């Protein structure tokens, strides 16, 4: 539930809360707001996302220069993707160059983005990753996290770190004991063990020794 709410999966959150009889910790309306913004970016409509986030809380982009730069960079990427080269150049000059002057770190990223224009076939370009959907997702997640922070909510869902912890704990245990290892994280299927009693004892022992 925490994962659905934080990552902005409203329908999933609603369905999940109905099935489990859980009530979501916050109103689903606010998930909707964030979901609209996320979708806008994932559809390449960065301008709409900026307008929406400014409606939600105008402070976010005014106090978060890095995020603002990444959104503008995303806009530039979208221009290039659509082949609007003149617009791209104009936009880079008017909007992004001043940000680069303000911060050298941004300049580097800007140069990388501009390198997209140098290749006809972006699939062979060393900066082709910028056109990949994962770039949109990265920008969308950064924005989502900033909105959550501004609303005093957790910005990182608990599920990924819980899963990481599970994998780590299983690896650690592997070196010491036999135990019913979770083979498949999606189905939570446990590995078959010939003698489950021994394994349980082993786990108990290992817990006692810690």
């Amino acid at each position, binding site marked *: 539930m925490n994962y659905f709410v934080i990552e902005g999966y409203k329908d999933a959150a609603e369905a999940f809360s109905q099935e489990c009889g859980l009530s979501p910790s*916050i*109103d689903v*309306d*606010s998930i909707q*707001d964030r979901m609209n913004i996320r979708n806008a970016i994932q559809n390449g409509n960065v*301008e709409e996302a*900026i*307008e929406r986030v*400014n409606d939600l*809380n*105008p*402070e976010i*982009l*005014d*106090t*978060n*220069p*890095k995020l*603002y730069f990444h959104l503008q960079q995303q806009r530039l990427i979208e221009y290039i993707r659509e082949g609007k080269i003149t617009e791209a150049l104009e936009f880079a000059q*008017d*909007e992004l160059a*001043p*940000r680069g002057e*303000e*911060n050298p*770190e*941004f300049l580097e990223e800007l140069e990388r983005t501009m390198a997209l224009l140098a290749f006809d076939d972006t699939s062979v370009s060393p900066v082709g990753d910028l056109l990949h959907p994962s770039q949109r997702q990265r920008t969308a997640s950064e924005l989502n996290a900033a909105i959550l*922070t*501004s*609303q*005093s909510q957790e910005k990182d869902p608990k599920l990924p770190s819980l899963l990481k912890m599970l994998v780590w704990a299983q690896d650690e245990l592997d070196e010491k004991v036999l135990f019913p290892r979770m083979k498949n994280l999606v189905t939570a299927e446990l590995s078959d063990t010939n003698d489950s009693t021994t394994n349980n004892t082993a786990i108990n022992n290992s817990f006692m020794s810690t």
Partner: protein
Amino acid sequence: MNFTKHNQAVLDLDSSDPAVRVKALRFIKNNIIGNKTKKDLYIGLNVIPKLVTFFIETEGVDPEVQIQAAIVLGSFAYGGEENVTEIVKHEAVKPLLECISLKNDPRLIEAAARALKAIYKCPTANKNDIFQGYHLQDLITLLDPDALKPKTDREKIASVHTAELAATIIARCCDTNEQQIQIAQAGAFPKLVNLLTCGFSKAQEAALDALAYLCRENSDFGKEIVKTKSETNEDPVKIMLNLIRDKSPTMRLISAKCLTHLCRAKAIDEYLNDITLAVLPTLVKLLDEKGPVREEAPHVLAYLIRDNEELQKAACDSEAVSKLAEFVTHISDQNSSYYDPLGDGDKLKENALMALAAISSLTDEGRKLVVDAKIIPHIVAAMSHRSYGVRAAACQCTRSLSRSVHILRTNLVDAGIATPLFKLLSDESTDVQTMACATLCNIVLEFSPMRKQIMEQGGIEKLVKLVHSPDNTLRLNAIWALKNLVYHAESEVKYRVMEVLTYQTMEKLIEDPELDVQEKALNLLRNLACPKPEDIEEVFKGLTESRLMNIIESKLCCSWSDEIIKQILFVINNIATGNEYHKKTIMSRTNILTHIKNYMSHQNPDIRVAAVWCLINLTWMEDKHSSSQLRVRELRQFGFEDIVKNMANDENLDVREKVKMALVQFSQV
């Protein structure tokens, strides 16, 4: 092409159709948010006065127009100090304050509060308006999220956010004691303590920040906050001690700051253990964070341990010095900007130096740690840093270190601190000059190898120039350094100093409106008139006898400051150690003798000691000279012997010892 687009938007603001206006406002808003260039562009197009009119002509103005206009004003204010100055110049603050009244649309209240927060973030913004009329009361009301009667969850988030904004504005408007009082009287404490339990971290942080500034250097308010329980009957200090263990570093920092302010205000003395075992280690740990948290943590740490030897020792036992030294050594001095994502490197360096200065201010242990961290060369380099805050902090650090005679004579000399420090006396910033002067006070002492160097570089001329400064503290520190320079100095040095300073100027300083300056000027006179009769003679010549005696008489009779009385008694003392003529001069002034007699029963033991010293020196007999016997008889006749006899059982050991000495003198005649 771009420019016509923006020009058109500005023109559309004059439209009579609210829809056109709103559209133009939204267009401007989405252009300027996050974009400094566009903010400047629109301010250049003179948008601010137009926005202000939307709030003044309240008749028939679409509420949406006002909401968007308030957001645009707020975004301008985020662009920095010049923008805020523009907003204030066009008198936008009062209309925005009108907007935060509960009778308005909650969205307008939120937008206006946000704009005000951004405006008051600027330290130069005038805060008076908020204390006029009912604005402060409006603001306090907003601290309660339920005041806006939110129905949906979305509205609830907005009302908590408005409460957060109100708390932030309050935190930024308690610069003076007067402001603290007004805010407290308007009922801020219970509402802020309640906000601590609201469960929304941003609002909790803002409430902590406001509480911290309300009790800053204010013991009464500190105690009042500690006593204020939340509606859930929770103890605010307990809440804060929980919050310093929060997941979020910002929350940990602000709770540590609030507890620090309460501690400094002497409001939580019974929590000393928590301060040493929880607050201090939290602050040291926060030095490992990033950005603004890492930047402010050393500042809070410095404030917590200032003047407190125990806490300075505790800081020595932590890893504070090595972490802070790291900042001083490794923060690059490349041009940082407002947009630097790592925070302001200059500010971090300044705060780290201030924290190191605090750790090494009272204990040799701390000083040794700082020296061992091998940062003295970096401190020297920091003295010519581009940021005046860093330069001043480097001085402060040097000052703490120079309190160890050993370090002063070895490490500081080796590092060549004298020349860069001397340069700072001519710094463009008065703060830096003041701090450099204070540091110089230790460097020019008689046992300092750098004293000669400072004089050769024109130190006396420079300090004398500063003695004429209109800035009280700078004037004080300059005369302070001069009086240290002549302390135990050879007659030559004294002569050089007075040649440049002139006796006339010294007399003027003795009559300075600032009592502290008077005291140091008298201390200078005292240091000049010793130890040889020739030194005293020089003062008699320089001031003329009659003027010197006039100074003594007037200060003896009309001073309310113990320190000044002490200094003037020591001036008399030093003259009384002189030759026959000098002693006679004092003896011939019955007025002075009467005052000395009276001060022997002063409530301050230091003054009693100084007065008895005068008597000892006047009755001192080196060669059984008949004139000294005569003096003893005269003083006996004056009633001094009876008085000191009565003082034999004084409660103060030092006084009793001096009394014994005086009685021995009398017994010889």
